[in-house]
């Protein structure tokens, strides 16, 4: 049973099911209204019910027929790529674009084992210079450049 649940389709089904139940629960907190004057929760609730149903179907099909199992999780790329975006978001308004891009690119470099330290630093610096020139100097986007 556990093995059947590990199939891609079964897991997708679970994902849809969870999303459907969550949004359904949240929709119930909204005014539903009637068919003429639908409230804010009318369509989300209807969609949540449909999604929950579809989730069950996908789950059942996946569990019964057993599609390809989910494989190949690599923690390193996921965490560093996401951390890179996080770094950018946390720093851009505090340190300005230049440092923010530098830090984000340096973090991104962590995602691949192939980098040498000096190489990563110079690429990050290059990217920071390039984006500062392009976005702030040339395109004049209203972004702070320095702290």
């Amino acid at each position, binding site marked *: 049973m556990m093995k059947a649940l590990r199939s891609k389709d079964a897991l997708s089904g679970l994902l849809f099911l969870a*999303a459907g139940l969550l949004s359904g629960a949240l929709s119930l907190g909204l005014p539903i209204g009637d068919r003429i004057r639908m409230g804010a929760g009318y369509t989300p609730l209807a969609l949540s019910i*449909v999604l929950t149903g579809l989730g069950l179907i996908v789950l059942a099909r996946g569990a019964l027929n*057993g599609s390809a199992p989910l494989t190949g999780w690599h923690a390193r790329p*996921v965490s560093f790529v996401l951390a890179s975006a996080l770094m950018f978001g946390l720093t851009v308004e505090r340190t300005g674009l230049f440092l923010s891009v530098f830090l984000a690119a340096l973090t991104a470099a962590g995602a691949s084992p192939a980098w040498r330290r000096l190489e990563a630093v110079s690429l990050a610096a290059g990217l920071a210079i390039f984006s500062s020139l392009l976005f702030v100097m040339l395109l004049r*986007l209203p972004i702070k450049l320095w702290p």
Partner: protein
Amino acid sequence: MDTLSQLWMGFDQVLVPQNLLFCFLGTLIGTLIGVLPGVGPLVAIAILLPITYFLSPLAGLIMLSGIYYGAQYGGSTTAILVRLPGENSSIVTCIDGYEMARQGRAGAALAVAALASLFAGCVATLILAILSPLLIELALLFGPPEYCALMVLGLVAAVVIAQGPIDKALAMIVLGLLVGSIGTDVNSGIPRFTFGVPALMDGIGFIPLAMGVFAMSEVIKSLEDPEARGAGMVTVKRLWPSAEDFRRSWPAAMRGTAIGSSLGILPGGGAYLGSFVAYALEKRISAAPERFGAGAVEGVAAPESANNAAAQTSFIPLLSLGIPGNAVIALMAGAMMMQGIQPGPQVITTRPELFWGLVASMFVGNVMLVIINLPLIRIWVMLLKVPYRLLYPAVIVFACIGTYTVGNNTFDVFVLMVLGLLGYLFLKLDCEPAPLLLAFVVGPLLEENFRRAMHLSRGSLSVFVERPISAGLLLAALTLIVIVALPGIRRGRDRVFEGSS
């Protein structure tokens, strides 16, 4: 004859050094903006808007519109090269364009995209010149029930596009509709699924969503398999399209142009559907639908021509009615207002030089775009020879900057991060993101129009079948889904057996 002489007058207006210069500048900026992930025409035009204050109204409009349709050209570049759709119009191009690039046919994909766009741009501009007054009357036949039926047809097209089992595609669509309902409910002003975050009150942005589920997840996936893309992505087999590519592309481009031109006219958001419907049609009528998703050149030609045609004809509501059909066109209306010209149906008669000059500039601009773009293809393809590890930090950083600049809001960057994780999950689970994205774009329009139709009909569902256009569209959607459902279920089963064996 009258049209012809007026068009001639338009060319007279455009073929002066100043206007030609701004036409060139606009298309060049548009191309570059389109290539830069995340920085779309909306941001570019918003930035350049103050400059137009100092230009003549015509020069300003020529430049801004050049940016708009130029970005449609450029937008496909990153979609093909790094699976990064900068515009909702290039979501579909990601599917087969990126696949072609992985097979070493990036040059062919880019060239086909450019030529299909040129063809579509010219035809659609001709339509704009000759048929605007007539077409706008047709567009006015679309009320809430018609828009609703049209959106349903668009969602059915998204099911056709999807590869895997039909139940998963449907679930992704419903999920997309739900994600689209995040934000303030238009009717009541009540925030939905916002958890009290003001930045979520306008909903999740298209840019972070598209960047997250397409680009960020693709970066992660590519890094998991470092050998596949370690030293340069692929060997580039040939730069230009083959005779076979051309033979396959041109009918697809014609059909794409027809679909894009007709949908672009509708001010209520028809333009979004163009590329999806065109792609779905090609896949449906193809003798070998399994080629789609595996690098079919028609899968690039059709959506690219459709979105470019729609970009041109979406000027029709603004120019002949004064009502902008999308956010970018609304900015152009803003540019006109800054010049003291209130957009409206009378502009075409009171300021004919503006209308015909703009139309003529679109012909000139489309030709300029091809001249700018064809030589660039060589450069883009060279970019693919750069080792991927040097390229991916730039993709991430540009995705972040692009997301941030949309609303000058760091919250969007965090949204990008979360959606990147979600996109990665989708990739791992073989859930295709394209239907979700279309549903996300179409969802709010569908809901609004459905509620409006129900409100106006006082709750009677029969409006959808009593009004001929809506009935026709729904019938088409029904037919399509029946055709899809049968082989779709079969295909789903085949997969299952493959998996279990």
